[in-house]
């Protein structure tokens, strides 16, 4: 009886992609979707933050300038610690990836917004971008020396083919784990939040009055989860950028150094 009055629960609905501005060119669908819209929004927010922070028209750094400087220092420290001083040539790339993912994750917290990073297409595209950058830059800089990444030193010749196969599979699995981690975290987090939010409504709207106060319990849980998800949003963006640095380190120093 309670289920009849309760609204239908569909935790996946929030991830559906809908065209916002329909654009059709020569029979192909180029519509601007909600995903594309929120990606543009994330880029816009990042650019705005940095533009305000870099204005620096007063001698004393203001809040926005401190924020921009902290963002720079944090990312630069991450790049230097993972990929060394030469890694700084990739700083613009890592910074862009980090802030795109971070802002996309954070925008997803606003009600009625869309979490771009909860789609594996987006995270896989980013991970493949990193992967291909590593492969092409490594081959360009080091030529065939780059393949030493797959040949560990000091391995007896009779198990070398097996070890090389394992190393190659391990190398190829990187973009998969790189993309799935971010995607799965964001997807699972938003589904969990939705489900607990729905529990609040179901219990609050229950026909037995005795059940109504119990709605406080899932509400408390949802509040806690919101905090946890905020941490996860930061952490996953950080981990994504950190792994980008570590993979780029392989392109800079194949076979270690």
């Amino acid at each position, binding site marked *: 009886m309670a289920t009849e009055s309760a609204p239908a629960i569909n935790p996946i609905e929030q991830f559906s992609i809908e065209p916002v501005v329909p654009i059709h060119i020569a029979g192909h669908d180029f519509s601007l979707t909600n995903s594309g819209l929120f990606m543009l929004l994330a880029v816009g927010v990042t650019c705005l933050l940095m533009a305000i922070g870099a204005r620096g028209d007063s001698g004393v750094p203001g809040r926005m300038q401190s924020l921009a400087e902290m963002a720079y*220092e*944090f990312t*630069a*420290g*991450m790049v*230097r*610690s*993972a990929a*060394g001083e030469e890694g700084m040539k990739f700083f613009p790339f890592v910074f862009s990836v980090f802030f795109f993912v971070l802002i996309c994750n954070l925008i997803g917290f606003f009600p009625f917004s869309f979490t771009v990073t909860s789609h594996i297409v987006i995270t896989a595209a980013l991970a493949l971008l990193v992967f291909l950058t590593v492969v092409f830059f490594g081959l360009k800089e080091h030529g065939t020396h780059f393949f*030493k*990444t*797959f*040949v*560990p*030193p*000091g*391995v007896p010749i009779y198990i070398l083919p*097996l070890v090389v*196969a*394992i*190393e190659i*599979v*391990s*190398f*190829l*699995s*990187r973009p*998969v*784990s790189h993309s*799935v*981690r971010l995607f*799965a*975290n964001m997807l699972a987090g938003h589904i969990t939040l939705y489900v607990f939010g729905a529990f609040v409504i179901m219990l609050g709207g229950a026909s037995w009055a005795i059940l109504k106060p119990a709605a406080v319990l899932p509400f408390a849980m949802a509040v806690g989860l919101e905090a946890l998800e905020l941490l996860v949003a930061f*952490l*996953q963006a*950080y*981990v994504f950028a*950190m792994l980008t640095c*570590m*993979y780029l*380190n*392989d392109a800079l*120093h*194949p*076979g*270690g*150094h």
Partner: protein
Amino acid sequence: MAEDDDERLRSNLARLRGSLDKARATGEARGPARAGASGAPRGDSGMSLAMRAASEFISAIAVGAGIGWALDRLLRTNPAFLIGFFFIGVAAGVFNVIRLTSPKGGGPAQDSPLSRAEAADKGGRRPGLEGARERGSSGEAAGSADDDED
């Protein structure tokens, strides 16, 4: 009297400059280390490490099995390559997890070049942690000095 003051000021200045130089030197030594320290602890939090280990393990198996499946389709050798590459994928997954969790010193995968990235990363973090510890102990030292003065 005036000369006395001058002398005292000069010696004060020299002392301050000396301690400033020292602070600057150690500060420079700590600069990059601090950057490492600021990044290290969050990336290593228990839950994210567990998530990383799980995803690296599973993705290696999936990629291995996928390669085997594709080779089988190409060469019509069903299911020889699928079985073989599945196990290679499992080995790569175990390798990934060992590499991820092994301490920077030892570990079976230490000689692997791919693990060097991780080792270099951890090596980059280690001075950070040491720097933090050093800073902590110097802070304690400063604290005790303060206590003495009090």
